[in-house]
């Protein structure tokens, strides 16, 4: 377990409800919710709007629970990084036990509610994704290997599969491709971030690739993951699982992604470098995932 956070030494705290909300990482949640919603909308079977809303809500609650448990476990390293030092636990606004109870309770509630509203397949995948994020990524991999976000990225790739399973009760080729797309998208996205936040990760002792293998290797790896990611992004169109809107958006966005990651792969940072290309790749990678998933959902709605 993580060593004691600053908050543990203090007397019992009365955290504000906003602190509990912050524990769920709302900004990270938005992408998870969106990909889950698109997975649900892309499914061939219609789902009752109330049940569909509940499924997306459960994906959000499950992601929030995983985020809360992640913050509970990582309070010590969060305290060392500028980006995370103001979170409720390292800032001392909440005691660790409240965070743990909140995370476990929310996780159990989200899985049970999803089972009640939809089916056991979706609920089981949601439970698996929460356990994967907390146990495999946070507890096992993050502090041990620079491949942490490669394998851990699978946790963030589950939401479109959960959305699809909520509507259909099974998992077929398209949700597997969507899973693979998010899985392969995660390394370039996080390594672009890690390149310009390298000193923060080094200070916290997190073995991110730029810290352990160096910038050169990270830049090459970004490009190496971008290529199969683009191939997977184009597969739904090539296999006739998605229509023209998806094909056009996926092609256009992938060209831009390839350009930005190649630019990052070919450059070397100077002393006090502003890391603009890396920041641009990071920002565009978020837009890319939003765009491609939105196109898939739109495609299905237009065709319907």
């Amino acid at each position, binding site marked *: 377990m993580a060593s004691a956070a600053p908050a543990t030494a203090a007397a019992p705290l*009365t955290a504000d409800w906003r602190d509990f909300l912050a524990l769920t990482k709302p900004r990270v949640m938005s992408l998870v919710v969106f990909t889950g919603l698109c997975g649900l909308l892309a499914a061939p079977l219609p789902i009752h709007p109330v049940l569909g809303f509940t499924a997306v809500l459960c994906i959000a609650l499950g992601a929030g629970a995983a985020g809360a448990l992640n913050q509970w476990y990582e309070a010590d390293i969060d305290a060392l990084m500028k980006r995370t030092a103001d979170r409720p636990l390292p800032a001392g606004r909440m005691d660790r036990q409240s965070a743990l109870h909140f995370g476990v309770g929310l996780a159990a509630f989200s899985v049970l509610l999803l089972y009640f509203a939809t089916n056991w397949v979706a609920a089981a995948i949601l439970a698996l994704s929460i356990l994967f994020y907390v146990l495999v990524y946070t507890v096992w991999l993050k502090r041990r290997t620079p491949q942490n976000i490669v394998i851990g990225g699978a946790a963030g790739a589950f939401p479109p599969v959960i959305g699809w399973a909520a509507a259909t009760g099974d998992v077929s080729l398209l949700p597997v491709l969507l899973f693979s797309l998010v899985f392969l998208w995660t390394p370039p996205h996080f390594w672009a971030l890690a390149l310009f936040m390298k000193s923060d990760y080094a200070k916290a002792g997190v073995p991110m690739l730029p810290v352990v293998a160096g910038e050169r290797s990270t830049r090459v790896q970004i490009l190496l993951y971008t290529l199969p990611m683009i191939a997977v992004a184009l597969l739904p169109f090539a296999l006739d699982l998605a229509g023209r809107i998806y094909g056009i958006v996926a092609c256009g966005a992938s060209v831009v992604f390839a350009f930005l990651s190649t630019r990052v792969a070919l450059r070397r940072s100077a002393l006090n470098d502003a890391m603009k290309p890396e920041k641009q790749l990071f920002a565009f990678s978020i837009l890319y995932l939003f765009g491609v998933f939105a196109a898939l959902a739109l495609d299905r709605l237009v065709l319907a």
Partner: protein
Amino acid sequence: MNEQEVRKRQRSRAKVMGLLLLALVILIYGISIAKMVVAS
């Protein structure tokens, strides 16, 4: 943290919890109706 601040936070948390419970009741009711509609 003084007692007044603690009470203020407790009240605020209680209000949010009340609203969440109300939302949950409405949601469970909605899910039940939706499942009956789908089944019929």
